[in-house]
């Protein structure tokens, strides 16, 4: 078999694996959807977080940035990683102790205000949109090289696959697939 055929087999198998995991870990309640019923073991959770760090953006964009900008690119690397420290020290423990799943939930309940909740939602969407735009571009480039299609078509294909397993499995599915990705990486 040539390289092209091998890539198709490997990528096809890994997608089958991801989607199989998503179907097996189908979420059936809100708690399961957001936090996988809080029963993901810590080490596995850590592996999933690590896989998040090693995402499309870090493989494609971060490597490119550092090779283009030289040592100035290290700023992105440190911001990227340093953010995890802020997240772990300033955000995650309080969210967990408060018993809510999302930041808008926390803000709305803590300050007894629907307006504050709405502002938090807008911020959250804006921030994740910036992040997802970069990631999706990366996914599109990978798919366009792999299936030799246009980048925009690649984005659509990647998006539908991610959509499928994220909606179906919720946090549980995502944690499991991230863990698989960590092992693959």
């Amino acid at each position, binding site marked *: 078999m040539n390289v092209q055929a091998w890539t198709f087999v490997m990528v096809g198998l890994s997608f089958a694996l991801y989607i199989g995991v998503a179907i097996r870990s189908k979420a059936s309640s809100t708690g399961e959807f957001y936090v996988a019923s809080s029963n993901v073991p810590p080490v596995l959770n850590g592996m999933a977080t690590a896989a998040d760090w090693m995402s499309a953006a870090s493989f494609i964009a971060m490597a490119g940035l550092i090779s283009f900008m030289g*040592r100035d690119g*290290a700023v992105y690397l*440190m911001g990227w*990683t340093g953010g995890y420290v802020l997240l772990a*020290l300033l955000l995650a*423990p309080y969210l967990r102790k408060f018993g809510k799943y999302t930041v808008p939930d926390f803000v709305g309940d803590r300050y007894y205000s629907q307006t504050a909740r709405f502002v938090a939602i807008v911020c959250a969407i804006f921030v994740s949109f910036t992040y997802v735009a970069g990631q999706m571009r990366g996914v599109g480039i990978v798919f366009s090289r792999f299936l030799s299609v246009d980048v925009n078509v690649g984005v659509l294909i990647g998006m539908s696959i991610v959509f499928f397993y994220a909606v179906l499995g919720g946090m549980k599915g995502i944690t499991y697939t991230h863990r698989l990705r960590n092992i693959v990486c």
Partner: protein
Amino acid sequence: MTTKDKRRAYWRKNLQYLGILLSVWFLMSYGCAILFVDFLDRIKIVGFRLGFWLAQQGSIYVFVLLIFIYVYLMNRLDKKHGVEESSNRE
């Protein structure tokens, strides 16, 4: 000590940990890797310039270490105040 005092003590300790850990965080990333990088680059360790190494790898090791230290400290504090996870959760 009343409950209120206890809570205040807990929170003060929490802020203290945060202050120390985040100053290390700031010093490592902004300080060592950006502000004092030229000074640190004069030191070479096994062929690598220290400032450059800190920016690319060293700071990340420190970040991970900081999170571990924070988790250890907070678990200890939670246990001391009797609010650790296992007794707190249903």
